[in-house]
């Protein structure tokens, strides 16, 4: 399920920038990264290769990419967002709850035959009844109740889940749709968990 995105011009531009830096004598402290790793199960060596966003965001928050690079990352992210094929944004909130609670998936120790989790609770508060939530991301408690279900907010939230870098160039959130972590149906189920007024998130 690895990314099959074509990076086009943006990739070419960043690649040349880094080549220029190398040519200018700025040595790479990392050396040969691949030599420190070995492929294991579903985690192949290709996972060490960085796309332009990953490369641009591989630095302290204090030195984020330039406005120009940021803009092209966001634009290219936006272009790749795929809305639901049937136009329906909301699936089954009960299935969404399980996805939000499950952190497994894509580690070399995970069974690739099992569906991936979204692990939303690792970083976000959601249902008020779940005390074991993380704080790396904002609270999503009462998400749908506070925002309603207008087409605009549904599309915005779908895009956030698909590729958060559309809105925040070096977002820490995984690109659940873009990177193929969750399927379209799983994304719909998580959407329902956020928006359905019967979901524990909105109690």
């Amino acid at each position, binding site marked *: 399920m690895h990314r099959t995105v074509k990076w086009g011009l943006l990739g070419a531009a960043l690649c040349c920038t880094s080549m220029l830096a190398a040519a200018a004598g700025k040595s790479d402290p990392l050396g040969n990264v691949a030599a420190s790793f070995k492929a294991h199960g579903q985690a192949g060596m290709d996972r060490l290769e960085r796309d332009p966003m990953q490369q641009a965001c591989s630095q302290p928050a204090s030195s984020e990419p330039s406005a120009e690079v940021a803009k092209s990352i966001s634009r290219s992210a936006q272009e790749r967002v795929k809305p639901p094929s049937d136009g329906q944004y909301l699936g089954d909130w009960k299935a969404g709850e399980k996805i939000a*609670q*499950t*952190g*497994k998936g894509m*580690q070399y120790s995970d069974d690739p035959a099992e569906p991936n989790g979204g*692990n939303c609770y*690792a970083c976000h508060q959601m249902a008020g009844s779940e*005390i*074991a939530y993380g704080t790396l991301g904002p609270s999503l408690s009462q998400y749908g109740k506070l925002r309603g279900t207008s087409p605009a907010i549904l599309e915005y939230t779908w895009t956030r889940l698909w590729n958060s870098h559309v809105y925040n160039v070096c977002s820490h959130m995984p690109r659940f749709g873009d990177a193929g972590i969750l399927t379209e149906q799983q994304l719909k189920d998580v959407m329902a968990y956020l928006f359905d007024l019967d979901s524990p998130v909105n109690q």
Partner: protein
Amino acid sequence: MNYPRRSFLKLGGSALAALATTAMWPLRALAAAVRPEAAFVAKDLEGTYKGLGGTPTASAEIDLSTPDIAENGAVVPINVTSKLPGTEEIYILVEKNPNPLAAAFTIPEGTEPFVSLRVKVAQTCNLIAVVKAGGKLYSASKETKVTLGGCGG
């Protein structure tokens, strides 16, 4: 440098083990004569109490100390102190474990009616201390929450 953990004696070896086995043999008669097997294999509180010989009466004379929230249910500390006169036995139960009874202690004359142990708690539930004093069963209970941890579960 300080090594507080090195201050006690380390002994071992088969000779000592053999000696202790022999020396302790007659002592077994003093302890609860047989393992309360029915209580250990019971799958719920009711069955466990049956195995222990009756349903205990709640008592404020038992201090039960457990954490409100456990970082890891695999190891949950529990301290039990009984202020009931004539405390003979202390049992530690975890209500929603597959087999609630975790441990059964005999407290001989001269030993303080106190034990501290660490037990597995499979899910959020009550931890229960049952004390046998003067031939009767008493209990105290307290809930410990078991949470999901970390990043990838």
